[in-house]
């Protein structure tokens, strides 16, 4: 066996096992060749040194900075598309169904409450101030716009659901509100 082949086999068997005959042939050559013996020893030494290759740690705040970046992505709307393929959609359907039922109940209750409400003191058109957050569940502020001589804003009780009842601010919304009231409720106090 030539030394070149022996050294090639010594290197390759680190990744792929040699056959039994190849192993015997290699061992026989190594026993007879001092240079290949030294080469084999060097290979084993180098391999053992590589096992000691240091694993460097990134900076201590690496994970914290990564979390900040991911939070920023979420604020920008670049979060991953979760849940994705293979997700179980049944819980989402059940949740959606429950929300729809709850919304329907609120609408029905709200319309009944509006019909039974006492008359507002000011027959002038009122405008709901739209806000980005939902009104408090306990109260809503009715803010008259046109006439500053009117009484200060009065809390008139639990709100109707603006997102479902009103398409948007404006006269059509006010007509919808007014049309829900009985004629008697429109009389000034």
């Amino acid at each position, binding site marked *: 066996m030539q030394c070149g082949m022996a050294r090639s086999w010594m*290197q390759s068997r680190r*990744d792929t096992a040699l056959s039994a005959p190849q192993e015997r042939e290699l061992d026989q050559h190594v026993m007879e060749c001092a240079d290949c013996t*030294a080469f084999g020893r*060097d*290979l084993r*030494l*180098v391999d053992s*040194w*590589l096992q*000691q*290759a*240091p*694993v*460097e*740690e*990134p*900076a201590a705040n*690496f*994970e914290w*900075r*990564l*979390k900040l*970046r*991911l*939070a920023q*992505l*979420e604020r920008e709307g*670049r*979060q*991953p*598309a*979760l*849940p*994705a*393929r*293979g*997700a179980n959609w049944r819980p989402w359907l059940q949740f959606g169904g429950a929300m729809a039922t709850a919304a329907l109940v609120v609408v029905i209750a709200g319309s009944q409450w509006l019909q039974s409400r006492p008359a507002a003191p000011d027959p002038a058109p009122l405008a709901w101030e739209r806000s980005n957050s939902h009104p408090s569940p306990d109260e809503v502020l009715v803010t008259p716009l046109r006439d500053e001589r009117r009484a200060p804003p009065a809390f008139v009780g639990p709100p109707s659901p603006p997102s479902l009842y009103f398409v948007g601010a404006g006269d059509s919304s006010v007509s919808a509100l007014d049309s829900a009231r009985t004629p008697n409720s429109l009389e000034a106090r």
Partner: protein
Amino acid sequence: MQPMSALRAGTGLQELADEQLMEVLVAGNKAAFEILVQRHKARLYSYLLRLLRDPTEAEEVAQEAFVRAYVHADKYRNIAKFSTWLYTIATNLVRNRIRKTRSAPKLLSLHWGHDEDDDREPIDLPDPGDRPDRVFEKSELQGLVARGIEQIPARYREAFVLREVNHFTYEEIAEITGLKLGTVRSRINRGRGHFRDAMEPLLKRLRGTE
């Protein structure tokens, strides 16, 4: 959605394999990604440091690799290991970065674009003093090994580190690097040869003490 840190990892998440954690992440549990980061950040950073040879650059690329893995989690297909996928992202980022710096004006390329082959030298060993047979401290040896890896030309270093340090299989390295299997084997063998050459002074010293 709540930030990732607002979720608490379930007691069972730590026991899950990487691929299972990805499924949990895609299902909406972001705590799974925290665990993946903890598991892989050090080895990924080490790999990138050995390619880029700059701690700041290595951290930036590592961060970007994790960000991309997170943003595109829904595209991960369980036919490959998560680590293979992550390292593929990181390796492509490194190549893009090196490509950009090579096309940068000359002044910038002085740091990045120099021919690394010109820097190849065997490692310098610490003076043994009166004790030529002294055993190297572990930290000393680790430093010598790190310098030895740095001496490997970049062309071979990528595959060499993936195999010898990160212990990927040849097939995984082929997938990560986009190289053919034969090319991977060839580059790893060449890398081993260069590493042995770099460590020759230490080998000689050890032979001399026998």
